[in-house]
């Protein structure tokens, strides 16, 4: 439901009635074929919000080229007809009569069991900072504008130019924390979490969008590269020559003739600098959405002081109203992987709430029985799409149609205005039946987006869905050869001929599926593992929870409070009790995973528990093997009891607060074992932990001196408030460089920390009553597990996710998910969110008793002689060598595991004798395509 907003939420969990206001689109979605004529004819130009107003769109518009739904809309606020009473040009030219100026706004009631709010964020508007003069200096742009300037689909087609004179900038500066970490002019005390990384990314990719040398400088307060592989990216950026300057330019002025930007700033030694740049990018922060307050009132949920949704660390996506969940930046500013994680987490919460009604409102699609055409001679039908004017405007579609009729095996050819439209699907199915077509060629756009649609049409028509071949005459022809209609038409004919040649050889493929064992195995009984087990069990699936020690709870048992101040132990203890008494969870303590075979939907493992071996059959696995605190070897740790790690100091604070209170000087040292050679990653949680402990010490005894030696303080997101609070309480932050770490010395009985103070330019020597080392988080050993599942692991020892942005909880092996510290260091709330996300991802598989698989798989042919060359080259270990006896003689032959095979065909390319083929891409089919293309030569 686009152009819609929620205006009321009545009822309660399980039975909400949501009022949705639908704004008129003035275009009938069923009739619109996205030909673009309305926009072409529309005389009114308005700022294009997709490109941040850097170029124009029309009042009849689509958001962007790949928009979903790909349907135009009329923007009444700018439409000449709506504003002045006449025009209606779009209506005149629309070929399908889709324009409807009489559409009215309407409000509908929608009944749902749960509501998830993911309204995103509002990019900060920097016009309030008058000294940056964003409003008046053309070459001061926001980071989002810069993103569009870089983009290939942006206003300058990916070739970067500055706004003032459209020349390529050679010196570019980024200014961090604009609208974040400041309460001057805006009330955004929080850190937006993502700007450091996007600025570094922009600085790096700028090189790809410009010619010749370019100089990039990032002005920052602290670089916050606290995510997985972020620190490495930052270090690489430094190596690539991007300048990082710890300073904050205070004012900008336009350069000569209003081009470029003059900046003024003061360095740490108090020296003033005047620098000129061709362009300055403001790294704007992420605020709560503009309508956050209204939405919160409508949904009746509580917001925090920054208008983000209020959530508990142990229920990080649950709002204050039961059944309403939140995901993404509305919860707090965050990056893409964290948003995607929370999205799945919110899905899990809703799914658990409504577990009893799963499947009640969805229905499975059914198809007619399939006609076996494998033995029949090809009767090929060719459908050539005009795609409005997208194809027909360049390629002479009539000629292609006539040409296709001459090709061998072709018995039917037709041209459609839009082959993909729903009425054409009905037509194609009719033609298949009428002309007994048994192979189909669609000459249109790309199979990557449209083949699934046509496959479905084939099934509807009663033939195997793999009997189709597409010729991509739009994306890879008319769109890229706009000025050469003759050559484009010739190419289109070649494409169709090649597709027909392949189609003639297409064979029906067997639909593959696996029976899903509706049971889960969770490895690791810490906070993440328990959360995952509880979630999956609450969805109604049996779960086996494997823990290597004799106690559930993991590291969480040793933590005192979350950064929000919630007590951790009571929550974890309650969780342990729930896990142990849950009827669907079987807990195995002192257990070790010994074997793992099978694949998604059907794994089998042997688990050793107390000397006995137990076999477990499961459909999905969640890996939550956790991590541990690094035991330092530096700073006299282990040589003096007053030198403690965070967890040790937490225990000390818990047990002897009086002793802690009596201390005069407490020193923290950050990045112990993190962000240095050997362990180059940032451990993410230690800055917040130290700041939190420092505040607690200051509250115990305001007279105490608390020092935090740090390299950058990374209290990201709303945690920034703690950093502000610590400074307010007088905690002293001293920065050090990695080449010049502080020294810890013992003089008699006294313990001293010696380090340089950058600001005062002197050496500090502090007599420390306690020294707390913010030591790194290291992943637990997962070598055996990685070998068992053949999953992947990164250089730092953390398990690797399937995609760093879009699949942050899926592992590289289908059916396995990860959560918690085994993936990367993270605090309680994020560990819980990731575990809940794993629940949702696991639930997607467990929801089906039978799971369809793609049929494009390797198939052994009778030419295989068992040479086994392919066994080693298969990247998925899907091929094994088998022995069979025929006529009293032993023969060898390979066998492929369809569940593991991904159809990459490396086996096919390796095989010297065509002993293995890939369905839908056989050697003969590819050869036929090659030969057919070259017929024209």
């Amino acid at each position, binding site marked *: 439901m686009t152009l819609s907003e929620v205006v009321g939420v009545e009822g309660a969990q399980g039975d909400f009635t949501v009022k949705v206001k639908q704004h008129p689109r003035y275009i009938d979605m069923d009739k619109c074929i996205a030909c673009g004529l309305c926009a072409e004819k529309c005389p009114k130009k308005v700022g294009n919000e997709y490109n941040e107003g850097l170029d124009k769109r029309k009042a009849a518009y689509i958001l962007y*080229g*790949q928009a979903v739904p790909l349907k135009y809309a009329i923007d009444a606020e700018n439409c000449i007809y709506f504003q002045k009473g006449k025009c209606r040009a779009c209506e005149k030219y629309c070929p399908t009569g889709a324009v409807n100026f009489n559409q009215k706004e309407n409000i509908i009631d929608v009944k749902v069991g749960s509501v998830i709010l993911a309204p995103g964020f509002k990019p900060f508007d920097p016009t309030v900072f008058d000294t940056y003069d964003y409003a008046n200096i053309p070459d001061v742009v926001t980071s989002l504008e810069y993103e569009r300037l870089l983009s*290939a*689909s942006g206003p300058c*087609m*990916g070739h970067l130019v500055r706004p003032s004179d459209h020349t390529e900038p050679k010196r570019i500066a980024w200014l961090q924390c604009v609208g974040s970490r400041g309460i001057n002019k805006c009330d955004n005390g929080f850190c937006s979490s993502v700007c450091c990384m996007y600025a570094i990314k922009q600085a790096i990719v700028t090189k790809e969008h410009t010619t010749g040398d370019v100089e990039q400088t990032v002005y920052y307060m602290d670089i916050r590269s606290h995510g997985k592989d972020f620190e490495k990216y930052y270090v690489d950026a430094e190596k690539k020559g991007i300048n990082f300057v710890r300073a904050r330019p205070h004012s900008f002025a336009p350069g000569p003739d209003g081009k470029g930007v003059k900046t003024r700033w003061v360095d740490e030694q108090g020296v003033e600098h005047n620098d000129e740049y061709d362009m300055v990018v403001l790294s704007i922060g992420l605020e709560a959405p503009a309508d956050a307050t209204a939405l919160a009132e409508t949904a009746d949920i509580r917001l925090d002081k920054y208008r983000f949704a209020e959530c508990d660390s142990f229920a990080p996506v649950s709002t204050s109203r039961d059944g309403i969940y939140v995901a993404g930046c509305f919860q707090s500013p965050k990056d893409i992987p964290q948003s995607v994680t929370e999205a799945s987490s919110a899905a899990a919460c809703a799914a658990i709430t409504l577990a009893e009604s799963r499947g009640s409102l969805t229905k499975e699609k059914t198809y007619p029985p399939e006609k076996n055409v494998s033995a029949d001679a090809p009767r090929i039908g060719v459908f050539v799409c005009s795609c409005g004017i997208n194809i027909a405007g360049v390629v002479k579609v009539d000629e292609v149609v006539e040409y296709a009729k001459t090709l061998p095996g072709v018995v039917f050819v037709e041209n459609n205005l839009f082959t993909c439209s729903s009425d054409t699907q009905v037509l194609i199915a009719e033609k298949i039946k009428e002309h007994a077509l048994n192979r189909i060629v669609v000459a249109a756009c*790309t*199979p*990557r*987006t449209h083949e699934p649609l046509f496959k479905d049409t084939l099934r509807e028509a009663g033939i195997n869905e793999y009997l189709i071949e597409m010729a*991509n005459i*739009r*994306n*890879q*022809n008319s*769109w*890229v*050869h*706009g*000025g*050469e209609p003759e*050559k*484009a038409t*010739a*190419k289109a004919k*070649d*494409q169709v001929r*090649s597709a027909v040649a392949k189609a003639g050889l297409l064979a029906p493929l067997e639909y593959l599926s696996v029976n899903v064992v509706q049971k889960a195995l969770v490895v690791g009984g810490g906070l993440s593992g328990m959360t995952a087990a509880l979630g999956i069990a609450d969805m109604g699936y049996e779960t086996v929870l494997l823990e290597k020690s004799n106690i559930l709870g993991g590291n969480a048992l040793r933590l005192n409070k979350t950064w929000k101040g919630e007590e951790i132990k009571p929550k974890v203890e309650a969780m342990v009790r729930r896990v142990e008494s849950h009827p669907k969870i079987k807990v195995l303590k002192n257990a070790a995973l010994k074997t793992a075979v099978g694949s998604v939907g059907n794994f089998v493992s042997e688990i050793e528990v107390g000397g006995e071996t137990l076999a477990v059959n499961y459909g999905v696995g969640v890996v939550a093997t956790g991590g541990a605190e690094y035991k330092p070897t530096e700073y006299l740790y282990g040589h003096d009891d007053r030198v403690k790690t965070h967890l040790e100091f937490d225990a000390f604070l818990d047990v002897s607060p009086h002793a802690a209170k009596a201390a005069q000087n407490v020193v923290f040292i950050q990045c112990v074992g993190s962000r240095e050679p050997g362990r180059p990653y940032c451990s993410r949680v230690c800055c917040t932990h130290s700041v939190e402990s420092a505040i607690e010490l200051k509250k115990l005894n305001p007279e105490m001196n608390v020092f935090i030696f740090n390299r950058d303080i990374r209290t990201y997101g709303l945690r920034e408030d703690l950093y502000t609070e610590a400074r307010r309480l007088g905690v002293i932050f001293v920065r050090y460089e990695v080449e010049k770490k502080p020294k810890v010395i013992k003089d008699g009985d006294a313990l001293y920390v010696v380090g340089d103070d950058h600001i005062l330019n002197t050496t500090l020597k502090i007599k420390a009553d306690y020294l707390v080392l913010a030591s790194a988080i290291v992943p637990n050993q997962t070598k055996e597990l990685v070998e068992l599942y053949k999953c992947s692991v990164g250089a730092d020892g953390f398990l690797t996710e399937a995609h760093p942005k879009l699949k942050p909880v899926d592992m590289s092996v289908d059916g396995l998910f990860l959560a918690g510290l085994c993936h990367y260091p993270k605090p309680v709330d994020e560990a819980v969110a990731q575990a809940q996300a794993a629940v949702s991802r696991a639930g997607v598989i467990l929801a089906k008793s039978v799971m369809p698989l793609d049929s*494009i798989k390797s198939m052994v042919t009778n030419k295989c002689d068992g040479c086994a060359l392919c066994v080693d080259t298969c990247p998925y270990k899907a091929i094994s060598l088998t022995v069979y006896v025929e006529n009293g003689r032993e023969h060898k032959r390979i066998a492929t595991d369809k569940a593991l095979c991904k*159809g*990459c*065909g*490396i086996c*096919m*390319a390796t*095989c010297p004798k065509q002993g293995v083929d*890939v369905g839908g*891409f056989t*050697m003969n089919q*590819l*050869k036929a*395509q*090659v*030969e057919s*293309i*070259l017929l*024209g*030569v």
Partner: protein
Amino acid sequence: MADTYEPVIIGFLCNWCAYAGGDLAGVSRLQYPTNMRAIRVMCSGMVHPNLIVDALRKGADGVIVMG
């Protein structure tokens, strides 16, 4: 001759990257010469050396495997 030479190039394009890139070039309306004829494969790793030799033998002026 040099002006009218139009080589025929066979391109094997991996469905997940190069072919997708080809599609994106279309979406972005990047213009390029018409000489390449693409064959979609599920991975550039499935392109058997024989296919390449075959193409060259049958008259292709060039073969490009992208993945």
